[in-house]
């Protein structure tokens, strides 16, 4: 399977988070995760969607290891 990257990957992540009930308009790179109310349950589901629907394997621990503060931090880890 060819895995998406760059803007396509970012779109997948933002669509997934919007699907969890987050306001799509507020999902921008420099938005603070705490202010967005994005929590570990969001990241768990995001990791599962990336792997099961898009073949992108990333462990939750890899995201948590960088202690992400902004949505951009999360996108950067996933896009590595």
């Amino acid at each position, binding site marked *: 399977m060819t895995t998406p990257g760059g803007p396509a990957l970012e779109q997948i992540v933002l669509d997934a988070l919007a699907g*969890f*009930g*987050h306001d799509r308009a507020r999902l921008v790179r420099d938005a603070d995760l705490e202010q967005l*109310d994005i*929590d*570990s*349950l*969001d990241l*768990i*589901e995001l*990791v*599962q*969607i990336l*792997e*099961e629907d898009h073949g992108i394997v990333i462990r*939750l621990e890899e995201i948590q290891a960088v202690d992400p503060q902004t949505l951009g931090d999360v996108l950067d880890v996933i896009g590595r």
Partner: protein
Amino acid sequence: MTTAAVFPGHGPEATEAGGYVQARRPDLHELAIELCGIDPFARARESTRYLQPAVFCTSVAASGELDRPPAMAAGHSLGEFAALVLAGALAADDALGLVIRRGALCADIAEQLGPGGMVAVTARDPGRIAALDGLGAAVAGDNGRGQVVLAGPRAALDAVRDAAAEAGLHASELPVEVPFHTAAMEPAAQGLADALAAVEVAEPAVPVLSCISAKPFADVRSELAGALTARFRWGAVMDALRAMGATRFVELGPGRMLSSLIRRAVPAAEVERLGP
């Protein structure tokens, strides 16, 4: 806009909430210190014995910040006590005494059982949770949206974590040392029933949903005691609140666990939280 007030169960964030409660409900804080024999917030990290009254006091203090009375209420596990206080079914002082007794009974069981606790497993396809059957952990309840909580002794929890990883499921340990909502809690349920027999229970001013039945409490005493050994059904509670017309959910207390679950389960709802 129809408001549902919801109250979290165990919330480790309550360990930092002593100042919040002292500023809003100094009477309750002082009573907690008197009844516990020590400030429960100072010891909440150590044991459920102190964490339970700390969570309860935090939720009751947060209730005072509601802008208007809710149309309905529900609590996740321990949160049922604060929900019943908000609805006027239990007096705050009585409920604090019950919660302190509950915490002590649960801590006693944890000490007798030895190391153990609870683990939350998340799967987009709930059918895959079946891979975790027969490992010595019991299903304690569900949080909706594919998150199931299992409880049991240390070895069983380790086996669940390993099996979950093999099945591609995410498992995360909860910061509790007690297998709540399983048969192991029977002695605590009996002790709590005895304590409940001695307090007055009034008719709730608004419907309060039991997190076991997902229906309004019909018999507060027996349902509060029985909840310790029964599976919680938070997914069904969220569905029921929505079916009863809730369009705004306010989480009252430490942490934001319920807000996160509700945002997923009821995407159209307004979700707020009040607390430290």
